[in-house]
């Protein structure tokens, strides 16, 4: 099977908050690291995110959520991906996520959670190490 020469990432913002500065900073860092980023904009439902991820055939879905609904939204994305044949897609989460929520999120299948202190370089490196490139 053929392999792409680059990693494709969907950067998505589930939930109702209207702030995408963080998501855009991450998107730019990934682009500068040679990745192809599909940015879908604000206020996406898990269903919309999963449909976009599958249609775009991405290797990674990076979710950013500041609304506080991450405990519902992130696992929902993982679950829908698994149901629809996207189990091999790496799911990452970011935003204002309380420390105590992280273990359950990881348990649900979100591979890593990046909180506001994380450098973009750390995110780039994590993706390079863990994405299953198609």
């Amino acid at each position, binding site marked *: 099977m053929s392999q792409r020469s680059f990693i494709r990432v969907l950067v998505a913002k589930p939930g109702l908050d209207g702030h995408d500065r963080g998501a855009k900073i991450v998107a730019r860092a990934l682009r500068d690291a040679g*990745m192809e980023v599909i940015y879908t904009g604000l206020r996406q439902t898990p269903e919309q995110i999963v449909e976009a991820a599958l249609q775009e055939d991405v290797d990674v879905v990076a979710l950013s959520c500041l609304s506080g609904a991450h405990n519902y939204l992130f696992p929902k994305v993982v679950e829908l991906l698994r149901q629809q044949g996207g189990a091999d897609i790496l799911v990452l989460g970011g935003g204002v996520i309380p420390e105590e929520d992280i273990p359950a999120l990881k348990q649900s299948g979100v591979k890593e959670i990046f909180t506001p202190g994380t450098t973009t370089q750390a995110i780039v490196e994590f993706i390079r190490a863990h994405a299953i490139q198609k």
Partner: protein
Amino acid sequence: MLYKNELIQSFLSGDMRALARTVSMVEAGDLQSLQLLAAFAREGKRARLIGITGPPGAGKSTLAAKLAESLLDRGERVALLLIDPSSPFTGGAILGDRIRMHAIAGRSGLYIRSLGSRGSLGGLSRAVPPIVQLLENFGFDAIILETVGTGQAETDVIETVDSVVVVTVPGLGDDVQAMKAGIIEIADVFVVNKADREGAERTARQMEEALKLGPSDVPVLTTIATTGVGVPALISSLDAHYQTMLADGELAKRRERRLRKALHAYAASLVSVRLAEWVEEQLTGHWADIESGRVDIYSCGRRLAEEFQKGR
């Protein structure tokens, strides 16, 4: 991960995931995957191919979404191919056209795919024709292609579609020279978008004047893509253009040009891989001559090319 036979089966049964996978394989320029195309070929299945081009921010994506919506409403299956620029240095890209697709996302019979302009081996002009063929074989009635409107590869791509919509905005038409040379000439329908802004009518008239110098009468329309004003007229205009092309043979001519281009590119890619391998083989043992300057690369290259051709 889907394996080859399974992939073909899923594709033929209309599974979008299989389509998405196959588009990636073809985009990666994998020669073997291009042979998959043969397995998907369906006789007589034809899609209508609409290209939208124009300067950055003109409203191409918003307009593409509105066009797709109208076509979906009348029962057509629609694919959108959205091209955004990649960085020439890192190859990375932020593909943002999907932001404008919220109103139609999730509709059945719709497939949306973003492409980086340099994300594929051999460039956009090589990747797009086989991707279009895939989408056609998958069963879409209409394929809408959005390009950035700058750069030679883009012009190459847009040249091969059935109908070209060139979009501009009020003000930009004041200086017709500002429109990239070659773009105006390929317009089948000209759109002045953002007609809610001042000067749209004036820009439209200037474009009409400029287009009069060309060979055929290209309609100039005004639209407000955000609200959909003018979109029904654009659809009518595209339908009329399609019918005219069907009647006068232009459609067949454009399809032939598209297929020829794709065939040439594919044949060339097969030869170039073999040629490169062969040249490498021949060079072993002779590289020292080149390195020392006894033989120059041009005479050596010419001799190898001649021998390669004789051997065929």
